[in-house]
């Protein structure tokens, strides 16, 4: 296979990887601050995709414009979820709440998925896709998909903004403080429930953004949520728990691995490669590549 053809696969892989990285970073943020792994995270992504779908098909808005609506919307939704469902959990104390949070977020996941399933069944649709086309770019002899490149650039931009947010702003520092050392942060006066709610919103918004991009690339169904949450987990473990950079690298690696799997083995094996990677990492280096709090 000529290297030129590889570029297309690599771009695909990197793009998927970047999307996965967004999901993973969002989940990681939430976990770092509240010690809760939101099993409904992938479903929020799916919801982001659904909103984009609706916006595109019924309002004629381009997906990238939809982002402007989606970001604040999901910031709000995430915050609401946190306040209504997660906060009561925290009463039980960090240990108990971790176990119950699995149950509760799982339940949330079911509710979201079933509502979407119901809605889509009523509307007669089983998969959502947004076929947003822009003219292709031509470099040398290859045609590159403009949409994908744009998406990649957007995600890059978002990641940079996020990174700046976390390192430069006061809120970002509070988030990091809570993630690194909860007691010390509390002692220094960080309002845990407020930061937690905001972070939940932030993480959810990131997931929804990822959903926007995913729906532009592939057709999605209501049920992809759990699988994607699982992939986010793979990335977090691969990259190392608590590491922002690790999540990004992990995401890119997974995306590339999937892309090459699609090439050599066929698309059906993609979920399997994720599981295999997960198990290999767990057996060989459970800490992940860059494990330790960021």
């Amino acid at each position, binding site marked *: 296979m000529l290297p030129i053809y590889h570029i297309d696969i690599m771009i695909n892989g990197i793009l998927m990887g970047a999307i996965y990285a967004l999901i993973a970073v969002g989940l990681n943020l939430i*976990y770092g601050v509240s010690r*809760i*792994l939101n*099993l409904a995270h992938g479903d929020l992504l799916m919801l982001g995709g659904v909103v984009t779908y609706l916006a595109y098909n019924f309002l004629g808005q381009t997906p990238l414009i939809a982002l402007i609506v989606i970001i604040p919307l999901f910031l709000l939704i995430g915050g609401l979820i946190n306040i209504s*469902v997660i906060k*009561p*959990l925290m009463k*039980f104390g960090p240990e*108990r709440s*971790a*176990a*119950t*949070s*699995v*149950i*509760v977020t*799982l*339940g*949330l*996941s*079911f*509710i*979201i*998925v*079933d*509502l979407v*399933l*119901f809605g889509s*069944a009523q509307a007669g649709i089983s998969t959502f896709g947004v076929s947003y086309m822009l003219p292709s770019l031509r470099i040398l002899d290859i045609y590159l998909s403009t949409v994908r490149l744009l998406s990649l650039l957007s995600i890059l931009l978002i990641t940079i903004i996020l990174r700046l947010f976390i390192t430069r702003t006061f809120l970002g520092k509070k988030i990091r403080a809570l993630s690194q050392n909860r007691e010390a942060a509390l002692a220094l006066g960080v309002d845990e429930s407020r930061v937690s709610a905001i972070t939940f919103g932030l993480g959810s918004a990131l997931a929804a953004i990822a959903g926007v991009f995913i729906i532009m690339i592939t057709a999605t169904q209501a*049920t992809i949520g*759990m*699988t994607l*949450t*699982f992939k986010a*987990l*793979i990335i977090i*473990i691969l990259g190392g*728990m608590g590491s922002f950079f690790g999540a990004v690298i992990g995401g890119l690696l997974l995306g590339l691995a999937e892309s090459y799997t699609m090439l050599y083995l066929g698309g*059906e*094996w993609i*979920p*399997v490669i*994720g*599981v295999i990677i*997960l*198990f290999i990492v*767990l*057996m060989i280096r*459970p800490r992940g590549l860059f494990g330790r709090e960021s």
Partner: protein
Amino acid sequence: MIVLLCIVPLFVTSYILRVIFITLVFITFTVSYNIVGGYLGYVNLGHGAFFALGAYTFVILVTKLRMPIPPSILMGAVVATAFAGLVSYPLFRLRGAYFSIASWGLIILLNQLAVNLDWLTGGVWGVQLPIPSAEASVPAYYGAISIMLLAIAVSYSIYKAKFGLALFGIREDERVAANFGVNPFKYKCLSMMVSAFFAGLIGAVYIFNIGVISPSTVLSIDVSLAPVVMVLVGGVGTLSGPVLGAAILTIVQEILWTKTEYFHMLTYGVILVLVGLFMPGGLVRSRKLRRILRWKEV
């Protein structure tokens, strides 16, 4: 009660027999889940994978290798147990919610394999067993009774014995338990294998009765996650909790779900959220209920 169960097939219609059978299956399934999910405290979302493995192994052995039924059922349990043992190594490197999500990966994995390896598993369409359902239902029923009783007996003996104590210790505080001489991995792995054994066993028997297997029947979300919900409703980590939860929910399912095909997952979800927030101990542990029924907790 047991005697009652045994003579039931003589009197009821085959529909009711099947409902009772499914209840028994889910009770066993939930009791087996409880060993890891309840006693050990690790929410194993992938428990359904053991059930499915038992079922698929059984089907493959019977259809492809033409093995007789009873050894095939046993092999289903053996394969599930071996798989559990193998998979313990990577899975138990994780704790808490990480473990839960990773264990869900087992279901994703099996689902994918079942669909992809269609020369073995019949792919998405599945395989039909060459056994007429009418012939299978009575022996399957008795098989289910005995397996359920065995599972409950094993669950009880674990509960009372040192093994159970070790599991509880790990659940409450793993490091402290380790300090007291409990080898965490050994107990985690063993408990997972025991729970997988019964899941695989009952999975095979279930499919023996149903007669048809496909990824959507054994690897669907409502089957795989049913034990989690049932144990939660009944009482996590108790002895009678899973039995109660499974019995109640299966019957509720039978009644509700035949009315509408939507909102199955929604119901589960709402139950999960409500029970998680307000009654995380489950029905068995609820003091109000106990006062009403004057029932001692087991």
